[in-house]
């Protein structure tokens, strides 16, 4: 507030000699030398104020009866006061009487008190103006100076405060839960008040500034909202997943979220491999046909372009940049001197490195998230009930989805709740669970032995020349039969256990995972056999090649003295290139897996759904409710399919760089296809359950698979010699030699030395030891934190319970507190009275029905604090405010002023407050 304003204010007040009530008595007679007429006026005003206060006191006593009227009075009164103001403006002389009248009629509390003061001041203000005019004409400087003394600092401060309050009121007007009419009228008054006492407050400017601020704030909010929308739009398939989630629950959605995450990881891998290996090779490497490894052999050339050959990834595809064998062992390629073999090796390693990092990081983040929210589970249902509807929804389709999702989420929470409330025979359940686990372990062992047996047999079969179709394919058949029948069997057994579906899903996932490990094992075994065979073959071919080349040159030397024409690359005999073989094997497997998955969905879900849907009209039994019915979405199968597929990709990406590209395509189509399939032909689970907050179980499986697939690749890199005539490492003893070579040739000597030291076992072993120790320490710390966390949670829960209990008991135990509460009531009321007023208007039936009132009274008694806070919505018990307090008295207060017919109160008392019902309330 500017000094100037203050001065102005002071001027005004000086003229009037204003008094604010409450100040009256304490005011000493220090105003002796006041101008006479002014003094008399002041006197009258003082009287008014005094009378006013008396009136108010009386009114407070009468409040019991007047309670309701009073509240309705509020807006009316303000209107009345406004009217009065007008009148006063017109006839200034009669002002005092008018005011007195008005005040006599006023029976409000602080709110209206304020108003009174205000009107009071307004009146004075009017007077003031008049006087000022007079004074100006008379130019009475002396009176001005004399007034200065008459005005005490306190009065000024009071007035300032008043003005401040009004201004605050104006600025917070929009936050008041009042009816617009009331807001407008109160606003008008407050503005008038402020205007009078502050003069030109720079209101117009402030308003503009405010409007500008408002606009900016709004723009900001809108921008934030748009940005959020934009962000969600940037998240691919967010809407699709939300839609699935709204109909099938978060458990099904968790699969799609996992799928999306996998897609993201694969995109990065794809970028790495394509950007650093395939594209440089295609752009800068030797072109196709320039050397034997980049050329289709003469014998295959005739059929190399046939579709059946290409479908098997033979022919031109085999001799393309998609596979290991195509790459040359030239140290640098192109004008960039790009070190391709080095890049190939590093990318192969970083694929694993990146995957490991990203899986572990996301696991850690998920774990963080699931522990971060502490007391969020206190209001699960309440929040669902009151905040799940989004008021922005204006589109019927979105609304439908929202309804579905709300219902689903309620069902999920209900399942959780029922599960936690379930109490059955614990011993029986334990027994059943042990039994189920024994059964499943038997199943797993049996199938493990079966696989082992079949693999053994197949090795003998492979040595036989005339093995039949069954003998050749026995392993595959057994594997797919196991994969087909075991999961449903597990599921049946799992019903014995009677787990919560979420936990059940985890068990199911773990069991099927164990089963599928057998699958992986046989596949790897077959692959290793293949590789060993190829390695043996290679030695033979190596010699042949050398001899062929030697022969070729010799023959050409004999024929002519000129330099011999080089042998056509297609004619050069070449080794089997086991790396490409492995790559092709894995690519084939992946592609067939994709096809099987899609066909299964198409037949098992879509065709079945169509059949059930349309044949239901002409069938003997109810297809939809009866036997085939619609399929449920198979979460465990799909998740495991995804996980194992990813394992294949990791394993194969080193030998077939193009594999990741295929996988990216697969995940992309699978996203759309499965979303469509699940929405069109599946039904939600019978018990829709909530997915666990973190996808960490899926991630754990993924991590395991990553580790398992890392092992064979690491083994082949570290201990098998690369093929001599294909791939970027040809000619080296081991693949990792490429690093040594780079260090020796491209780095200064001391780097090589450093590497030598670092690779020293004497350094590595202590480092590993240190890491183990660090892991141990961190583990201990995290455990301690966890314990502390659990402890805190328990404490909080306890505190909450305690608080609840305290509130419950308060009404009966602490009557002192209650009286205190009563005393404090006016202050709470003063700010809430408008609310009451409008509420009153709304539920007038309440007033009419005494029964409702009584109930309310009882409720109030049960919880004084809550009642105080709740004053906003209940006609509050401002009953005994001015009564003499009788602490510790339990009997109903004497009610001299309440003429109850029949002596003793029979029925409910509308405003009885904390009297009798205290006994009634059972606590």
């Amino acid at each position, binding site marked *: 507030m500017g000094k100037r304003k203050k001065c102005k204010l002071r001027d005004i007040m000086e003229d009037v000699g204003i008094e604010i009530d409450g100040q009256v008595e304490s005011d000493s007679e220090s105003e002796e030398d006041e101008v006479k007429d002014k003094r008399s006026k002041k006197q009258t005003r003082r009287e008014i104020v005094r009378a006013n206060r008396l009136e108010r006191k009386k009114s407070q006593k009468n409040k019991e009866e007047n309670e309701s009227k009073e509240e309705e009075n509020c807006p009316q009164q303000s209107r009345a006061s406004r009217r009065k103001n007008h009148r006063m403006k017109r006839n200034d002389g009669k002002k005092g009487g008018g005011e007195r009248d008005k005040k006599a009629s006023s029976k409000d509390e602080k709110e209206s008190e304020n108003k009174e003061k205000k009107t009071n001041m307004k009146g004075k203000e009017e007077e003031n103006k008049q006087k000022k005019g007079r004074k100006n004409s008379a130019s009475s400087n002396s009176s001005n100076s004399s007034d200065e003394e008459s005005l005490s600092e306190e009065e000024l401060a009071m007035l300032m405060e008043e003005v401040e309050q009004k201004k605050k009121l104006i600025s917070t007007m929009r936050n008041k839960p009042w009816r617009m009419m009331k807001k407008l009228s109160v606003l008008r008054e407050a503005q008038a008040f402020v205007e009078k006492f502050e003069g030109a407050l720079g209101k117009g400017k402030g308003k503009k500034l405010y409007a500008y601020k408002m606009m900016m704030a709004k723009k900001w909010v809108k921008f934030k909202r748009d940005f959020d929308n934009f962000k969600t739009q940037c998240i691919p398939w967010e809407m699709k997943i939300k839609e699935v989630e709204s109909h099938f629950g978060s458990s099904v959605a968790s699969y799609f979220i996992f799928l999306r995450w996998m897609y993201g990881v694969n995109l990065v891998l794809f970028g790495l491999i394509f950007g650093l290996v395939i594209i440089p090779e295609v752009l800068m490497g030797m072109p196709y046909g320039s050397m034997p490894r980049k050329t289709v052999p003469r014998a295959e050339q005739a059929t190399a372009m046939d579709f059946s050959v290409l479908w098997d990834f033979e022919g031109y595809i085999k001799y393309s940049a998609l596979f290991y064998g195509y790459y040359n062992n030239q140290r640098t390629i192109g004008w960039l001197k790009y070190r391709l073999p080095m890049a190939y090796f590093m990318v192969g390693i970083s694929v694993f490195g990146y995957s490991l990092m990203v899986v572990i990081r996301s696991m850690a983040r998920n774990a963080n998230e699931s522990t971060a929210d502490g007391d969020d589970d206190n209001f699960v249902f309440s929040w669902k009930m009151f905040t799940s509807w989004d008021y922005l929804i204006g589109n019927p389709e979105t609304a439908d989805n929202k309804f579905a999702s709300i219902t689903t989420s309620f069902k999920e929470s209900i399942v959780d709740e029922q599960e936690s409330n379930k109490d059955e025979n614990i011993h029986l359940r334990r027994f059943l669970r042990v039994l189920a686990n024994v059964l499943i372990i038997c199943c797993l062992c049996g199938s493990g032995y079966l696989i082992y047996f079949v693999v053994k047999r197949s090795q003998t079969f492979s040595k036989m020349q005339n093995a039949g179709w069954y003998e050749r394919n026995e392993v595959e058949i057994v594997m797919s039969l196991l994969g087909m029948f075991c999961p449903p069997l597990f599921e049946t057994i799992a019903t014995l256990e009677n787990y919560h579906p979420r936990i059940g899903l985890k068990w199911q996932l773990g069991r099927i995972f164990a089963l599928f490990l057998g699958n992986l094992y046989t596949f790897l075994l077959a692959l290793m056999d293949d590789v060993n065979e190829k390695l043996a073959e290679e030695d033979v071919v190596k010699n042949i090649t050398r001899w062929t080349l030697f022969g070729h040159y010799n023959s050409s030397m004999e024929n002519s003295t000129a330099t011999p024409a080089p042998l056509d690359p297609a004619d050069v005999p070449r080794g089997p290139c086991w790396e490409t073989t492995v790559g092709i094997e894995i690519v084939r497997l992946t592609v067939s897996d994709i096809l099987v998955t899609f066909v299964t969905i198409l037949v098992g879900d879509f065709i079945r759904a169509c059949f059930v849907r349309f044949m239901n009209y002409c069938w003997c039994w109810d297809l939809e409710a009866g036997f085939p019915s619609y399929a449920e979405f198979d979460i465990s199968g799909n998740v495991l399919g995804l996980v194992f597929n990813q394992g294949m990709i990791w394993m194969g990406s080193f030998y077939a760089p193009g594999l990741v590209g295929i996988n990216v395509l697969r995940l992309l189509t699978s996203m759309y296809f499965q979303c469509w399939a699940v929405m069109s032909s599946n039904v939600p689970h019978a018990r829709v359950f909530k997915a666990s907050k973190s996808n960490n179980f899926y991630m754990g499986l993924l991590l395991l698979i990553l580790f398992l697939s890392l092992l064979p690749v690491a083994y082949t890199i570290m201990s098998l010699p690369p093929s001599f005539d294909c791939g970027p490492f040809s000619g080296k003893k081991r693949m990792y030699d490429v690093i040594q070579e780079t260090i020796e040739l491209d780095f200064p000597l001391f780097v090589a030395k450093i590497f030598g030291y670092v690779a020293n076992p004497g350094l590595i072993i202590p480092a590993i030891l240190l890491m183990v120790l660090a892991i141990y320490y961190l583990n201990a710390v995290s455990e301690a934190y966890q314990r502390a966390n659990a402890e805190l949670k328990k404490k909080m829960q306890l505190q909450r319970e305690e608080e609840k209990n305290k509130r419950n008991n308060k009404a009966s135990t602490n009557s002192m507190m209650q009286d205190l509460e009563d005393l404090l009531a006016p202050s709470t009321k003063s700010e809430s009275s408008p609310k009451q007023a409008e509420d009153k208007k709304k539920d007038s039936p309440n007033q009419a029905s005494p029964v409702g009132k009584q109930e309310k009274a009882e409720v109030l008694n049960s919880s004084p604090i809550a009642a105080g806070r*709740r004053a906003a919505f209940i006609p509050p018990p401002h009953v005994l405010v001015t009564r003499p307090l009788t602490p510790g008295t339990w009997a109903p207060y004497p009610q001299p002023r309440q003429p109850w017919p029949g002596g003793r109160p029979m029925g409910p008392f509308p405003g009885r407050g904390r009297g009798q019902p205290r006994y009634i309330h059972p606590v």
Partner: protein
Amino acid sequence: MGNKQTIFTDEQLDAYQDCTFFTRKEILRLHGRYHEMAPNVVPMDYTKDPDVKLPMQLIINMPELKENPFKERIVESFSEDGEGSLSFNDFVDMFSVLSEMAPRELKAIYAFKIYDFNTDNFICKADLEKTLNKLTREELTAEEITLVCEKVIEEADMDGDGKLGFADFENMISKAPDFLRAYSSSVLP
């Protein structure tokens, strides 16, 4: 632009601006929306505070409210007579509270009113059941509804009276993470 100014006087606009979370333009646009719902009844000239009310049927068919399961309750809570017909003042009031700028406390008060179906100043079991039925389009079984209602009361009822008073409600809702977002509607895109 010229005739727009005749709808409200400057003082009126200023007052509305002070009492709501809207700017001048938005208030004029709100008037436009109000006017177009019933062009015959609502005058273009509001300088003299005409006493015009639109029935609930018209209001709840606004696209902003049409899909809202609580549209009747919203309109009722904001109508001065409690019957659901809104004067322009009530109309502005409603969207002011529903605007994104409105503070949490204000929204909580009106949210409480909205869910208090029988206007007894408590959210009791019957209110909760109604709310739930509206939210889920009555797709839950009776048992599930009872379970949910009991859980809600158990969670939020701090004073143990078996129903939710405003204090309970506010306590509960003030901790909700997406309360503000949930109770915001924008008439003025």
